[in-house]
């Protein structure tokens, strides 16, 4: 396998790697800071807004489910919608491959993974394609080539490189997309996978969803590096820095970076600077009280990616009226409620699934253990 051309040779159509400031198209006030590409018509922006709002409300409803004890774990992506929805638009679902991390349900929704599947997985119901074997929020969706998520941080990075190497070997025009948080970039696996991808010129787009906190450790506590994307330099790939709360910027930069990867130039890294507005997960309810300031959270709430698109649409003379917005929200809530009922109605997988899929066929020792379990179940449970 050959190595990639020097990063300096990157032809950049206005989008430069290694910028000091995040690339931005739309400011916090919703006003464009540079001309928007023609594709961003009001209709297009409304579509993007709808996907983002759907994910936002999915978050809100799933937290309710959590409080009701109907699921046991949830990792919000509120505040990160522009990053994940923007990234999704550089992926061809079911063609390119995605090695995601556990906070990526907005990405999954944007790639067309049915909400029913996501909810089924969160509930561990019979309709869960992963058969209730993973903790909630660790999805896998075959149709979208959305690969199964491991809880181990950064664990997906070397395999993503391998999938990209396989794509290159097979001579397909697919690429692999690999996502992770900022904390993940401290793990050995991250460096190992990035380095290998560079050395092998693997067609992999690495995307750091830098939401600035890894549970209670902030970026400064995570690394003395100025930022994340400059680390790409060390691995011989371009690193792009983008305002992760600006859907236009994320789409433009990710599409550009994916294009570079698709063209056979080797891997690229995109760092989306964003913020998780909520807690890390339900296991971390008191984020504000314990480790971050109210001021910081308020400041980032002012950069809300969903609101930014609303301001932009208003500026363009196509505002989303409040009744329309309320109706959209109500529709998502209804949708979640319906899917929850549907998923719960399928019941829970029984004990047999425990012994299946460990191997391609069940070895004798598992048949023995399954028989023991059957006897216990049929003898009446205690």
């Amino acid at each position, binding site marked *: *396998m050959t190595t990639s051309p020097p990063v300096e040779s990157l032809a950049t159509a206005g989008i430069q790697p290694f910028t000091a400031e995040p690339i931005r198209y739309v400011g916090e006030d919703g006003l464009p800071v540079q001309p928007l590409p023609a594709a961003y018509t009001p209709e297009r922006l409304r579509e993007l807004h709808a996907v983002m709002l759907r994910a936002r409300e999915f978050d809100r409803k799933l937290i309710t489910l959590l409080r009701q004890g109907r699921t046991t774990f949830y990792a919000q992506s509120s505040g990160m919608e522009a990053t994940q929805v923007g990234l999704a638009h550089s992926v061809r679902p079911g063609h390119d*491959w995605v*090695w995601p991390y556990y906070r990526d349900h907005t990405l999954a929704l944007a790639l067309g993974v049915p909400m029913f599947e996501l909810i089924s997985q969160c509930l561990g119901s019979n309709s*869960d*394609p*992963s*058969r209730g*074997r*993973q903790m909630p929020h*660790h999805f*896998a*969706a*075959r149709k979208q080539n959305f*690969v*199964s998520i*491991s*809880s*181990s941080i950064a*664990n997906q*990075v*070397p*395999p*993503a*490189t*391998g*999938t*990209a*190497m*396989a*794509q290159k*070997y*097979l*001579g*397909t025009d697919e690429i*692999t997309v690999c996502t992770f948080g900022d904390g993940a970039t401290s793990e*050995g*696996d991250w460096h*190992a*996978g990035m*380095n*290998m991808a560079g*050395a*092998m010129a693997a067609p992999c787009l690495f995307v750091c969803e830098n939401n600035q906190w890894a549970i209670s450790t902030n970026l400064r506590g995570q690394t003395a590096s100025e930022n994340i994307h400059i680390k790409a330099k060390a691995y011989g790939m371009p690193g792009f820095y983008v305002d992760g709360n600006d859907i236009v910027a994320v789409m433009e930069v990710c599409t550009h970076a994916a294009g570079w990867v698709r063209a056979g130039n080797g891997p690229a890294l995109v760092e989306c600077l964003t913020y998780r507005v909520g807690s890390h997960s339900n296991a971390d309810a008191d984020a504000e009280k314990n480790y971050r300031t109210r001021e910081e959270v308020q400041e980032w709430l002012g950069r809300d990616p969903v609101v930014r698109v609303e301001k932009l649409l208003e500026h363009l003379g196509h505002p989303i009226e409040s009744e329309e917005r309320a109706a959209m929200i109500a529709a998502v809530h209804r949708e979640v409620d319906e899917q929850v009922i549907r998923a719960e109605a399928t019941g829970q997988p029984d004990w047999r699934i425990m012994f*299946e*899929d*460990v*191997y*391609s066929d069940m*070895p*004798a*020792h598992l048949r023995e253990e399954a028989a023991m379990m059957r006897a216990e179940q049929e003898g009446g449970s205690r």
Partner: protein
Amino acid sequence: MIATQERQDMPAAEPRTINLITAVTEALHEEMERDSRVVLFGQDVGARGGVFMATAGLQATFGKDRVFDTPLSEASIVGAAVGMAVRGLRPVAEIQFADYMGPGFDQIISQAAKMRYRSGGQYTAPLVIRTPSGGGVKGGHHHSQSPESYYTHTPGLKVVMPSTPYDAKGLLKAAIRGEDPVIFFEPKRLYRASKGEVPGHDYIVRIGEAVIRREGTDLSLIGYGGVMPDLERAADALAAEGVSVEVIDLRSLVPWDKELVVASVQKTGRAVLVSEAPRISNFMGEVAYSIQAAAFDSLLAPVGQVAGFDTPYPYVQDKVYLPGPNRITAACVQALNY
């Protein structure tokens, strides 16, 4: 696009006597010829042919797209194998020494072993990790350990360790053709020391089946990997004293052939288990448990165990550390005199 297809016909030829490492090379060669999805990589496996020359000549034959060197990173090597397997290739990764699987450990146990299960069968990771293991080559503890029990403890992995050229070739082919991730330990001290016949035609040895190396009626002597020649020596010594020893080579640890082992102990009434890994949490503890659970009534003596010591593998005392014929014979005598 490279056509990925399997070739069924293998030209028949006369059986030949080869050593264990040649058997490994032949298995790789034939499987790569048969199936273009098989790719081979690791540190120095390309032009160099691997530290032990197991992949010698394969890059010249199959090209750099199929046999290639990687950066020095076991996490990348194992992780990449997972990603390739998930995407439909049949990766065979080499780790230079089993002692160096540490950096790739999490990729093995969190990704390779769990892929099928955690995705509900939506994704699978049929990969093979080949690695030389065990002592007896004056390698100090970073070139001599027997870490198989770390892997046998992980559901989802198949764990194999041959001791003859026939088994090495047949098991490696089965591992490559199978649908599950396989950790393939190669006892490095037998690479050249173990010679034997392999057929001229294509064959596999099914993973999970043990083999009786010699039949006996007084005691079942059970081992795998690098210790097997010492089991044979101990059995010879005992035969000279009129003791009939049945020697069993497990070959596969997960799954392992409980049926064959239990049947043997039911016949002989005595079992001595031999491996060179440290004793605590040694895989043979599982075998001992299973024997007493399934054949308690047949046992004429407690199950004996000979293992490495619970020390890091020593450099100077290499040969002393390993359970040689003397220690094995003594354990058998103890069981016979119980």
